[in-house]
């Protein structure tokens, strides 16, 4: 339960990173051997080595991307909260970012248009953009 363990959880594992790098290096070796075999006119061997090299390279890149995606998905997005301020007398409205201490029906300073009346917080909300695909149902 250390203070820093949260950041540790959100990192790519060193073990995974090491394996990915080794596979990546081996794939490069396979590609180099393929080039060598091609020069020696062993086309079939060159073909096999080239396929193995590219598959290994694609796999290591995929694992690396997946690990990165996992780390990214750890972070929880907190959309910004908005506070709506209203004057009940003249009806003027304004929206600003939420500040600690705000609550619905909290009285604030006097209204700019009608100084006798006080402004009031009438709503606090977050706006969420839906990612869902349109469904026929």
């Amino acid at each position, binding site marked *: *339960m250390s*203070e820093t*363990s*949260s950041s540790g*959880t*959100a990192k790519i594992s060193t073990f995974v990173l090491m394996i990915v790098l080794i596979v990546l290096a081996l794939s490069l070796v396979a590609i180099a*051997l393929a080039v*060598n*075999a091609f020069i*020696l006119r*062993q086309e*079939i*061997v060159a073909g*096999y080595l080239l396929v193995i090299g590219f598959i290994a390279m694609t796999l290591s890149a995929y694992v690396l991307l997946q690990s990165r995606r*996992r780390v990214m*998905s*750890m972070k*929880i997005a*907190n*959309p910004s*909260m908005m506070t709506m301020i209203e004057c009940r007398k003249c009806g003027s409205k304004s929206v600003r970012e*939420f500040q*600690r*201490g*705000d*609550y*619905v*029906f*909290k009285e604030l300073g006097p209204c700019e248009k009608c100084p006798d009346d006080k402004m009031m917080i009438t*709503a*606090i*909300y*977050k*706006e*969420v953009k839906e990612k869902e695909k349109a*469904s026929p*149902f």
Partner: protein
Amino acid sequence: MNAMAAELPALGNQLFQLPTGDTISQILSMLSYVFFIVLIFYGQRIQMYMMIREVEGSLYKLKYMKEEGRKTAIETIKEIGKPQTDPSDRVDRYLEYFTISPQSMDPAGIVWKLDHILDVRDTRLKDEVKLMAPATDEVQVNNLENTLEAAMALNYIYKVVRHFYIQGKKTLSLYIIMQLQMILPLVMKEAEAYARALKAFAFGQPIGDGAGALVAAKLMHGYEVRKAPKDCVVATALIEGRTAFIIKAEGPGGNVGKPGDAVKAVIDENEGKIASVIMIDAGLKLEGEGVGEVAEGIGAAIGGPGVDQFKIEESLLEYHIPINAVIVKEDIGDAVSPMRKEISDAVDKAIERVKSVILERTKEGDKIIIVGVGNTIGIGQ
């Protein structure tokens, strides 16, 4: 010795010589046979390891959320409560608190036992918060309690998932792992909702569950408000020619109050002469339904452990008072995370629906009770 020295370069050449095309194709075909045989005999085990890996990924995320919860709670206590000593140990102890529900072998009277246990729990947790954060007022104590409860929920979810994960790995039982993997999307959704709720509670922002409380707050705003049992407020307002007793939990601190006690008190004050009770709450939506849809029905619209629902139903039964309900639809994630604009906007629609229920179901001059149920964090009156 000389012959051996002569053979070594030849051996080296053989070793580093590239294999021919035939050799490689033979190796690949052998490998495919081995792969096929392994899949036949170890397919299920491989599938299990894949499931374990999937659960492991979610467990990492849960661990991260749990640690963030603890960190947020400690930071908020330090910021607001100005404690003399480091509150980390107390927070860790708080996160491990448990509540034992009453024995139900003889269910008669269990509601009152549960009510008592919940009261003791609430008092105990509030006292703990006051000890951790001495420089806090009542509103901040409620907000901190809510923050710690969200952190506690994350801690508990993490521990339960970890328990089944380790048990599944130890026993290598496909069925334990499979059950865990199947419910994991729902568990993660709930955990993510709690993780989002942390900041809302720490900053005192309204949450989706407060839709009912917001409806009541809008209806009672401008009228004189008095305290009602327990942690609730009641205002007497004139709506469509009827005398309405509007009840909600006392805000703006994080608090759900005990509407069951408040409703009973108001009914008793009026000797049961109440024409109707209308309850407004956030209701769970089904997939496909829109957030902020308003629906109307019959019954006590109130969640939680059921104590308040029982008390309200008992009070209504005594005087045969009809009960109506209006709900604002949202999913579990919306209910415990900061209030969405759709829900905030739905409050006005819910008020219109309440007014139409009043007009249709009661007569002018009647007395009615309107109860806004839900956590009133960030909502005054």
